Protein backbone atom coordinates (compact mmCIF):
# COMPACT_ATOMS: atom_id res chain seq x y z
CA UNK A 1 0.00 0.00 0.00
CA UNK A 2 1.36 3.42 -0.97
CA UNK A 3 -0.16 6.95 -0.94
CA UNK A 4 -0.96 6.49 -4.63
CA UNK A 5 -2.67 3.09 -4.31
CA UNK A 6 -6.39 2.97 -5.04
CA UNK A 7 -7.72 0.56 -2.40
CA UNK A 8 -11.01 -1.23 -2.65
CA UNK A 9 -12.79 -3.76 -0.47
CA UNK A 10 -12.31 -7.39 -1.52
CA UNK A 11 -15.60 -9.10 -2.46
CA UNK A 12 -16.86 -10.99 0.58
CA UNK A 13 -15.15 -8.58 2.99
CA UNK A 14 -17.25 -5.67 4.27
CA UNK A 15 -17.84 -3.26 7.08
CA UNK A 16 -20.66 -4.14 9.42
CA UNK A 17 -23.43 -1.54 8.91
CA UNK A 18 -23.13 -0.24 12.49
CA UNK A 19 -20.62 -2.22 14.56
CA UNK A 20 -16.86 -1.57 14.55
CA UNK A 21 -16.01 -4.82 12.81
CA UNK A 22 -15.20 -6.01 9.31
CA UNK A 23 -17.14 -9.10 8.35
CA UNK A 24 -14.86 -11.61 6.66
CA UNK A 25 -15.36 -15.24 5.61
CA UNK A 26 -16.09 -17.26 8.76
CA UNK A 27 -15.30 -14.41 11.15
CA UNK A 28 -14.85 -10.77 12.09
CA UNK A 29 -11.94 -8.38 12.47
CA UNK A 30 -12.30 -5.86 15.29
CA UNK A 31 -11.62 -2.26 14.33
CA UNK A 32 -10.24 0.35 16.68
CA UNK A 33 -9.96 4.15 16.76
CA UNK A 34 -10.79 5.90 13.49
CA UNK A 35 -10.41 2.73 11.35
CA UNK A 36 -14.09 2.57 10.60
CA UNK A 37 -14.23 6.19 9.37
CA UNK A 38 -11.25 5.50 7.13
CA UNK A 39 -12.69 2.30 5.68
CA UNK A 40 -15.96 4.07 4.96
CA UNK A 41 -14.02 6.28 2.53
CA UNK A 42 -12.50 3.36 0.61
CA UNK A 43 -14.38 3.33 -2.68
CA UNK A 44 -12.09 1.80 -5.30
CA UNK A 45 -11.90 5.18 -7.03
CA UNK A 46 -9.75 7.50 -4.92
CA UNK A 47 -6.10 7.15 -3.94
CA UNK A 48 -5.09 6.88 -0.30
CA UNK A 49 -3.70 10.43 -0.60
CA UNK A 50 -7.06 11.76 -1.81
CA UNK A 51 -8.91 9.93 0.96
CA UNK A 52 -6.58 11.40 3.58
CA UNK A 53 -6.92 14.88 2.12
CA UNK A 54 -10.68 14.54 2.38
CA UNK A 55 -10.48 13.22 5.97
CA UNK A 56 -8.02 15.93 7.05
CA UNK A 57 -10.59 18.56 6.15
CA UNK A 58 -12.99 16.90 8.64
CA UNK A 59 -10.44 16.65 11.49
CA UNK A 60 -9.39 20.21 12.25
CA UNK A 61 -5.78 20.66 13.27
CA UNK A 62 -4.71 17.23 11.99
CA UNK A 63 -1.31 16.95 10.36
CA UNK A 64 -2.07 15.60 6.89
CA UNK A 65 1.37 14.04 6.37
CA UNK A 66 1.27 12.23 9.68
CA UNK A 67 -2.24 11.08 8.92
CA UNK A 68 -1.14 9.78 5.55
CA UNK A 69 1.55 7.59 7.16
CA UNK A 70 -0.94 6.18 9.64
CA UNK A 71 -3.59 5.49 7.03
CA UNK A 72 -1.12 3.82 4.64
CA UNK A 73 0.00 1.59 7.53
CA UNK A 74 -3.56 0.70 8.54
CA UNK A 75 -4.71 -0.02 5.00
CA UNK A 76 -1.52 -2.01 4.41
CA UNK A 77 -2.32 -4.26 7.35
CA UNK A 78 -5.88 -4.77 6.11
CA UNK A 79 -4.60 -5.54 2.60
CA UNK A 80 -2.22 -8.13 4.01
CA UNK A 81 -5.18 -9.77 5.74
CA UNK A 82 -7.05 -9.82 2.41
CA UNK A 83 -9.67 -7.20 3.33
CA UNK A 84 -8.51 -4.75 0.67
CA UNK A 85 -7.21 -5.01 -2.84
CA UNK A 86 -5.27 -2.42 -4.79
Amino acid at each position, binding site marked *: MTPDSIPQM*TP*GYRLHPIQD*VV*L*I*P*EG*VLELSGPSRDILLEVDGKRTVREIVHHLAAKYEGADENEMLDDVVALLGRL*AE*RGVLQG
Partner: protein
Amino acid sequence: MSSTTRPQSLICEVTHRCPLHCLYCSNPIEMQKMETELPAEVWRRVFQEAAALGILHLHLTGGEPLARKDLAELIQAGHDAGLYVNMVTSGVGLTEERLAGLVQAGLEHLQLSFQDADEARANYIAGTRAHAWKLGLVPLIKRQRLAFTVNLVVHRQNLDRLEEMIALAESLEPNRIEIAHVQYYGWALKNRNLLMPTEEQVRYALPVVEAAKTRLRGKIHLDAVLPDYYANFPKACVGGWGRQMILIDPAGRALPCHSAGILPGFSFDNVREKSLSWIWDQSPAFERFRGDAWMSETCRSCDRKERDFGGCRCQAFLLTGNMEAIDPVCTYSPQHGLMEELRKPVGDELLPIYRNS
Protein backbone atom coordinates in the same frame (compact mmCIF):
# COMPACT_ATOMS: atom_id res chain seq x y z
CA MET B 1 -26.57 -19.66 35.35
CA SER B 2 -27.88 -17.70 32.43
CA SER B 3 -25.69 -16.96 29.48
CA THR B 4 -23.51 -13.88 29.58
CA THR B 5 -22.17 -14.33 26.06
CA ARG B 6 -24.03 -13.78 22.82
CA PRO B 7 -23.82 -16.24 19.94
CA GLN B 8 -21.85 -15.15 16.86
CA SER B 9 -22.59 -17.90 14.37
CA LEU B 10 -25.61 -19.81 13.21
CA ILE B 11 -24.76 -23.05 11.44
CA CYS B 12 -27.65 -24.40 9.42
CA GLU B 13 -27.62 -27.92 8.06
CA VAL B 14 -30.38 -27.17 5.58
CA THR B 15 -30.46 -30.78 4.36
CA HIS B 16 -28.60 -34.02 4.99
CA ARG B 17 -28.97 -35.07 1.34
CA CYS B 18 -25.59 -35.17 -0.38
CA PRO B 19 -24.15 -36.57 -3.61
CA LEU B 20 -20.85 -37.27 -1.84
CA HIS B 21 -20.13 -40.10 0.60
CA CYS B 22 -16.98 -38.80 2.25
CA LEU B 23 -15.36 -41.26 4.61
CA TYR B 24 -14.82 -38.46 7.12
CA CYS B 25 -18.38 -37.07 6.99
CA SER B 26 -19.14 -35.12 10.17
CA ASN B 27 -22.90 -35.57 9.87
CA PRO B 28 -24.51 -37.97 12.31
CA ILE B 29 -24.82 -41.65 11.47
CA GLU B 30 -28.61 -41.38 11.46
CA MET B 31 -29.45 -38.53 9.12
CA GLN B 32 -32.63 -36.48 8.83
CA LYS B 33 -34.85 -37.39 5.89
CA MET B 34 -36.02 -34.91 3.26
CA GLU B 35 -39.64 -35.05 4.53
CA THR B 36 -38.55 -33.62 7.88
CA GLU B 37 -36.62 -30.64 6.44
CA LEU B 38 -37.64 -27.19 7.61
CA PRO B 39 -39.45 -25.14 4.97
CA ALA B 40 -38.01 -21.81 3.81
CA GLU B 41 -40.52 -19.73 5.78
CA VAL B 42 -39.33 -21.24 9.08
CA TRP B 43 -35.69 -20.66 8.12
CA ARG B 44 -36.56 -17.05 7.30
CA ARG B 45 -37.98 -16.50 10.78
CA VAL B 46 -34.97 -18.23 12.37
CA PHE B 47 -32.55 -15.96 10.47
CA GLN B 48 -34.45 -12.88 11.70
CA GLU B 49 -34.30 -14.19 15.27
CA ALA B 50 -30.58 -14.91 14.86
CA ALA B 51 -29.85 -11.36 13.74
CA ALA B 52 -31.87 -10.02 16.68
CA LEU B 53 -29.73 -12.16 19.02
CA GLY B 54 -26.61 -10.44 17.67
CA ILE B 55 -25.46 -13.27 15.38
CA LEU B 56 -23.35 -11.98 12.47
CA HIS B 57 -22.58 -15.09 10.45
CA LEU B 58 -24.89 -17.55 8.79
CA HIS B 59 -23.26 -20.79 7.59
CA LEU B 60 -25.35 -22.79 5.16
CA THR B 61 -24.16 -26.35 5.10
CA GLY B 62 -25.50 -29.86 4.94
CA GLY B 63 -25.32 -32.41 3.50
CA GLU B 64 -25.20 -30.50 0.29
CA PRO B 65 -27.11 -27.18 0.41
CA LEU B 66 -27.50 -27.27 -3.39
CA ALA B 67 -29.85 -30.24 -2.93
CA ARG B 68 -32.45 -27.68 -1.77
CA LYS B 69 -34.30 -26.24 -4.73
CA ASP B 70 -35.12 -23.16 -2.64
CA LEU B 71 -31.49 -22.43 -1.72
CA ALA B 72 -31.52 -18.96 -3.34
CA GLU B 73 -34.58 -18.14 -1.24
CA LEU B 74 -32.75 -19.24 1.93
CA ILE B 75 -29.71 -17.12 1.04
CA GLN B 76 -31.95 -14.15 0.31
CA ALA B 77 -33.66 -14.62 3.68
CA GLY B 78 -30.30 -14.64 5.49
CA HIS B 79 -29.14 -11.59 3.58
CA ASP B 80 -32.42 -9.74 4.26
CA ALA B 81 -31.97 -10.43 7.98
CA GLY B 82 -28.59 -8.68 7.79
CA LEU B 83 -26.46 -11.80 8.21
CA TYR B 84 -23.20 -12.50 6.37
CA VAL B 85 -23.99 -15.59 4.31
CA ASN B 86 -21.39 -18.38 4.01
CA MET B 87 -21.98 -21.64 2.18
CA VAL B 88 -20.08 -24.93 2.38
CA THR B 89 -20.65 -26.93 -0.78
CA SER B 90 -19.27 -29.79 -2.85
CA GLY B 91 -20.29 -27.79 -5.91
CA VAL B 92 -21.53 -30.95 -7.58
CA GLY B 93 -24.22 -30.02 -10.10
CA LEU B 94 -23.70 -26.27 -9.69
CA THR B 95 -23.98 -24.33 -12.94
CA GLU B 96 -22.72 -20.82 -13.63
CA GLU B 97 -26.30 -19.59 -13.95
CA ARG B 98 -27.37 -21.02 -10.60
CA LEU B 99 -24.24 -19.71 -8.89
CA ALA B 100 -24.89 -16.22 -10.26
CA GLY B 101 -28.41 -16.44 -8.80
CA LEU B 102 -27.06 -17.42 -5.38
CA VAL B 103 -24.61 -14.50 -5.40
CA GLN B 104 -27.39 -12.18 -6.53
CA ALA B 105 -29.46 -13.41 -3.58
CA GLY B 106 -26.69 -12.42 -1.15
CA LEU B 107 -24.16 -15.24 -0.93
CA GLU B 108 -20.84 -13.70 0.18
CA HIS B 109 -18.50 -16.62 0.77
CA LEU B 110 -18.27 -20.08 -0.70
CA GLN B 111 -16.14 -22.93 0.63
CA LEU B 112 -15.17 -25.86 -1.55
CA SER B 113 -13.29 -28.89 -0.23
CA PHE B 114 -10.69 -30.95 -2.04
CA GLN B 115 -10.08 -34.48 -0.83
CA ASP B 116 -6.61 -34.95 -2.35
CA ALA B 117 -4.28 -33.57 -5.02
CA ASP B 118 -4.62 -36.85 -6.91
CA GLU B 119 -7.95 -37.35 -8.68
CA ALA B 120 -8.41 -41.08 -8.13
CA ARG B 121 -7.50 -40.82 -4.46
CA ALA B 122 -9.74 -37.79 -3.99
CA ASN B 123 -12.69 -39.65 -5.50
CA TYR B 124 -11.96 -42.67 -3.29
CA ILE B 125 -12.24 -40.50 -0.17
CA ALA B 126 -15.36 -38.68 -1.44
CA GLY B 127 -16.98 -41.94 -2.51
CA THR B 128 -17.98 -40.09 -5.69
CA ARG B 129 -16.31 -38.83 -8.86
CA ALA B 130 -16.37 -35.23 -7.74
CA HIS B 131 -12.76 -34.03 -8.04
CA ALA B 132 -12.77 -33.06 -11.73
CA TRP B 133 -16.14 -31.36 -11.36
CA LYS B 134 -14.84 -29.25 -8.48
CA LEU B 135 -11.77 -28.19 -10.43
CA GLY B 136 -13.98 -27.21 -13.36
CA LEU B 137 -16.17 -25.12 -11.08
CA VAL B 138 -13.37 -22.93 -9.73
CA PRO B 139 -13.10 -20.56 -12.74
CA LEU B 140 -16.86 -19.96 -12.50
CA ILE B 141 -16.53 -19.12 -8.79
CA LYS B 142 -13.65 -16.76 -9.53
CA ARG B 143 -15.82 -14.80 -11.96
CA GLN B 144 -18.32 -13.96 -9.22
CA ARG B 145 -18.05 -11.22 -6.61
CA LEU B 146 -17.58 -13.68 -3.80
CA ALA B 147 -14.98 -14.68 -1.22
CA PHE B 148 -13.64 -18.17 -1.85
CA THR B 149 -12.09 -20.70 0.54
CA VAL B 150 -10.43 -23.95 -0.44
CA ASN B 151 -10.74 -26.48 2.36
CA LEU B 152 -8.37 -29.43 2.61
CA VAL B 153 -9.40 -32.21 4.96
CA VAL B 154 -6.35 -34.22 5.92
CA HIS B 155 -5.84 -37.70 7.40
CA ARG B 156 -3.61 -40.74 7.07
CA GLN B 157 -4.62 -41.45 3.46
CA ASN B 158 -3.49 -38.05 2.12
CA LEU B 159 -1.26 -36.34 4.68
CA ASP B 160 1.92 -37.51 2.92
CA ARG B 161 0.86 -35.38 -0.05
CA LEU B 162 0.12 -32.22 1.97
CA GLU B 163 2.60 -30.15 -0.03
CA GLU B 164 0.97 -31.15 -3.32
CA MET B 165 -2.45 -30.45 -1.83
CA ILE B 166 -1.40 -26.97 -0.72
CA ALA B 167 0.12 -26.35 -4.17
CA LEU B 168 -3.17 -27.38 -5.77
CA ALA B 169 -5.13 -25.07 -3.44
CA GLU B 170 -2.72 -22.22 -4.14
CA SER B 171 -3.09 -22.65 -7.90
CA LEU B 172 -6.84 -22.09 -7.51
CA GLU B 173 -6.15 -18.61 -6.06
CA PRO B 174 -8.68 -18.57 -3.22
CA ASN B 175 -8.89 -15.83 -0.60
CA ARG B 176 -8.41 -18.43 2.06
CA ILE B 177 -7.09 -21.97 2.52
CA GLU B 178 -8.27 -24.03 5.44
CA ILE B 179 -6.39 -27.18 6.42
CA ALA B 180 -8.37 -29.32 8.81
CA HIS B 181 -7.51 -32.66 10.33
CA VAL B 182 -10.48 -35.00 10.40
CA GLN B 183 -12.46 -34.79 13.60
CA TYR B 184 -13.66 -38.16 14.78
CA TYR B 185 -17.38 -37.65 15.25
CA GLY B 186 -20.42 -38.74 13.28
CA TRP B 187 -19.67 -40.99 10.33
CA ALA B 188 -15.95 -40.19 10.49
CA LEU B 189 -15.63 -42.18 13.70
CA LYS B 190 -16.48 -45.37 11.79
CA ASN B 191 -13.39 -44.81 9.65
CA ARG B 192 -11.07 -43.72 12.43
CA ASN B 193 -8.68 -46.62 11.97
CA LEU B 194 -8.35 -45.84 8.28
CA LEU B 195 -7.97 -42.08 8.72
CA MET B 196 -5.98 -41.56 11.93
CA PRO B 197 -2.63 -40.08 10.90
CA THR B 198 0.61 -41.53 12.16
CA GLU B 199 2.89 -39.60 14.45
CA GLU B 200 5.46 -39.29 11.64
CA GLN B 201 2.84 -37.74 9.37
CA VAL B 202 1.77 -35.24 12.00
CA ARG B 203 5.41 -34.28 12.61
CA TYR B 204 5.94 -33.85 8.87
CA ALA B 205 2.77 -31.76 8.43
CA LEU B 206 3.32 -29.11 11.11
CA PRO B 207 6.36 -27.38 9.50
CA VAL B 208 4.77 -27.76 6.04
CA VAL B 209 1.77 -25.77 7.26
CA GLU B 210 3.95 -23.16 8.96
CA ALA B 211 6.10 -22.72 5.84
CA ALA B 212 2.99 -22.31 3.67
CA LYS B 213 1.58 -19.71 6.07
CA THR B 214 4.77 -17.68 5.80
CA ARG B 215 5.09 -18.09 2.04
CA LEU B 216 1.46 -17.14 1.36
CA ARG B 217 1.29 -14.21 3.81
CA GLY B 218 -0.39 -11.21 2.22
CA LYS B 219 -1.70 -13.33 -0.66
CA ILE B 220 -3.79 -16.16 0.74
CA HIS B 221 -4.83 -16.42 4.37
CA LEU B 222 -4.20 -19.88 5.77
CA ASP B 223 -6.06 -21.32 8.74
CA ALA B 224 -5.10 -24.71 10.14
CA VAL B 225 -6.95 -26.94 12.59
CA LEU B 226 -4.59 -29.19 14.54
CA PRO B 227 -5.10 -32.91 15.04
CA ASP B 228 -6.92 -33.31 18.30
CA TYR B 229 -5.67 -36.78 19.14
CA TYR B 230 -2.09 -35.53 19.15
CA ALA B 231 -2.68 -32.60 21.46
CA ASN B 232 -1.92 -32.45 25.18
CA PHE B 233 -4.71 -30.03 25.94
CA PRO B 234 -8.26 -30.12 24.62
CA LYS B 235 -9.68 -27.70 22.09
CA ALA B 236 -12.21 -25.10 23.13
CA CYS B 237 -14.81 -27.08 21.23
CA VAL B 238 -17.10 -24.71 19.24
CA GLY B 239 -15.65 -21.92 21.37
CA GLY B 240 -17.20 -23.44 24.48
CA TRP B 241 -20.60 -25.10 24.94
CA GLY B 242 -23.42 -22.56 24.47
CA ARG B 243 -20.97 -19.68 24.18
CA GLN B 244 -20.59 -18.81 20.50
CA MET B 245 -22.72 -20.83 18.17
CA ILE B 246 -26.00 -22.51 17.50
CA LEU B 247 -26.40 -25.36 15.04
CA ILE B 248 -29.77 -26.15 13.52
CA ASP B 249 -30.20 -29.58 11.95
CA PRO B 250 -32.38 -30.12 8.85
CA ALA B 251 -35.42 -30.96 10.98
CA GLY B 252 -35.04 -27.82 13.12
CA ARG B 253 -33.39 -29.18 16.25
CA ALA B 254 -31.09 -26.59 17.84
CA LEU B 255 -27.79 -28.05 19.04
CA PRO B 256 -24.77 -26.50 20.76
CA CYS B 257 -22.46 -28.36 18.33
CA HIS B 258 -22.44 -30.69 15.32
CA SER B 259 -22.25 -33.82 17.36
CA ALA B 260 -24.29 -33.11 20.51
CA GLY B 261 -27.15 -35.32 19.26
CA ILE B 262 -25.21 -38.38 20.42
CA LEU B 263 -25.16 -37.32 24.08
CA PRO B 264 -27.53 -39.33 26.30
CA GLY B 265 -30.45 -37.87 28.20
CA PHE B 266 -30.75 -34.70 26.15
CA SER B 267 -33.83 -33.24 24.62
CA PHE B 268 -33.02 -30.60 22.03
CA ASP B 269 -35.62 -27.94 21.39
CA ASN B 270 -36.87 -27.36 17.87
CA VAL B 271 -37.03 -23.96 16.18
CA ARG B 272 -40.50 -24.89 14.92
CA GLU B 273 -41.72 -24.62 18.52
CA LYS B 274 -39.30 -22.29 20.29
CA SER B 275 -37.63 -19.01 19.43
CA LEU B 276 -33.88 -18.90 19.04
CA SER B 277 -33.56 -16.44 21.92
CA TRP B 278 -35.49 -18.78 24.23
CA ILE B 279 -33.27 -21.67 23.15
CA TRP B 280 -30.13 -19.62 23.80
CA ASP B 281 -31.20 -18.10 27.10
CA GLN B 282 -33.51 -20.70 28.63
CA SER B 283 -33.14 -24.15 27.11
CA PRO B 284 -31.72 -26.81 29.46
CA ALA B 285 -29.61 -28.26 26.60
CA PHE B 286 -27.64 -25.05 26.01
CA GLU B 287 -27.36 -24.47 29.76
CA ARG B 288 -26.09 -27.97 30.51
CA PHE B 289 -22.32 -27.42 30.16
CA ARG B 290 -22.05 -23.68 30.64
CA GLY B 291 -19.94 -22.35 33.46
CA ASP B 292 -17.89 -24.69 35.64
CA ALA B 293 -20.41 -26.24 38.05
CA TRP B 294 -20.55 -29.47 35.99
CA MET B 295 -16.76 -29.81 35.81
CA SER B 296 -14.58 -32.20 37.75
CA GLU B 297 -12.51 -30.62 40.50
CA THR B 298 -9.43 -31.02 38.25
CA CYS B 299 -10.99 -28.76 35.59
CA ARG B 300 -12.69 -26.36 37.98
CA SER B 301 -9.42 -25.53 39.70
CA CYS B 302 -7.47 -25.29 36.42
CA ASP B 303 -6.60 -21.94 34.80
CA ARG B 304 -7.11 -23.42 31.36
CA LYS B 305 -10.88 -23.62 31.92
CA GLU B 306 -11.09 -20.00 30.71
CA ARG B 307 -9.46 -21.08 27.45
CA ASP B 308 -10.89 -24.52 26.69
CA PHE B 309 -14.12 -24.33 28.74
CA GLY B 310 -13.61 -27.93 29.79
CA GLY B 311 -12.87 -29.34 26.32
CA CYS B 312 -15.23 -31.40 24.21
CA ARG B 313 -18.17 -33.18 25.82
CA CYS B 314 -18.86 -35.37 22.80
CA GLN B 315 -15.27 -36.55 22.71
CA ALA B 316 -15.35 -37.29 26.45
CA PHE B 317 -18.50 -39.33 25.90
CA LEU B 318 -17.31 -41.15 22.78
CA LEU B 319 -13.98 -42.13 24.28
CA THR B 320 -14.83 -42.75 27.94
CA GLY B 321 -18.59 -43.34 27.95
CA ASN B 322 -19.04 -40.48 30.41
CA MET B 323 -19.96 -37.06 29.02
CA GLU B 324 -18.90 -35.33 32.23
CA ALA B 325 -15.42 -36.89 32.23
CA ILE B 326 -12.34 -34.77 31.65
CA ASP B 327 -11.73 -34.62 27.88
CA PRO B 328 -9.17 -37.44 27.50
CA VAL B 329 -7.12 -35.26 25.15
CA CYS B 330 -6.10 -33.38 28.30
CA THR B 331 -2.86 -34.49 29.86
CA TYR B 332 -4.51 -34.13 33.31
CA SER B 333 -7.18 -36.70 32.44
CA PRO B 334 -6.66 -40.06 34.17
CA GLN B 335 -7.71 -41.56 30.81
CA HIS B 336 -5.21 -39.60 28.70
CA GLY B 337 -3.42 -42.91 28.02
CA LEU B 338 -6.36 -43.80 25.73
CA MET B 339 -5.14 -41.28 23.18
CA GLU B 340 -1.86 -43.08 22.78
CA GLU B 341 -3.74 -46.33 22.13
CA LEU B 342 -5.96 -44.69 19.53
CA ARG B 343 -2.99 -43.12 17.71
CA LYS B 344 -1.20 -46.43 17.26
CA PRO B 345 -0.69 -47.35 13.62
CA VAL B 346 -2.95 -50.08 12.33
CA GLY B 347 -2.55 -52.43 9.38
CA ASP B 348 -3.23 -51.49 5.75
CA GLU B 349 -5.87 -54.19 5.40
CA LEU B 350 -8.67 -51.91 6.57
CA LEU B 351 -11.53 -51.23 4.19
CA PRO B 352 -13.32 -47.91 3.89
CA ILE B 353 -16.86 -47.75 5.24
CA TYR B 354 -19.15 -45.69 3.01
CA ARG B 355 -22.69 -44.57 3.69
CA ASN B 356 -25.25 -46.62 1.77
CA SER B 357 -27.35 -43.68 0.68
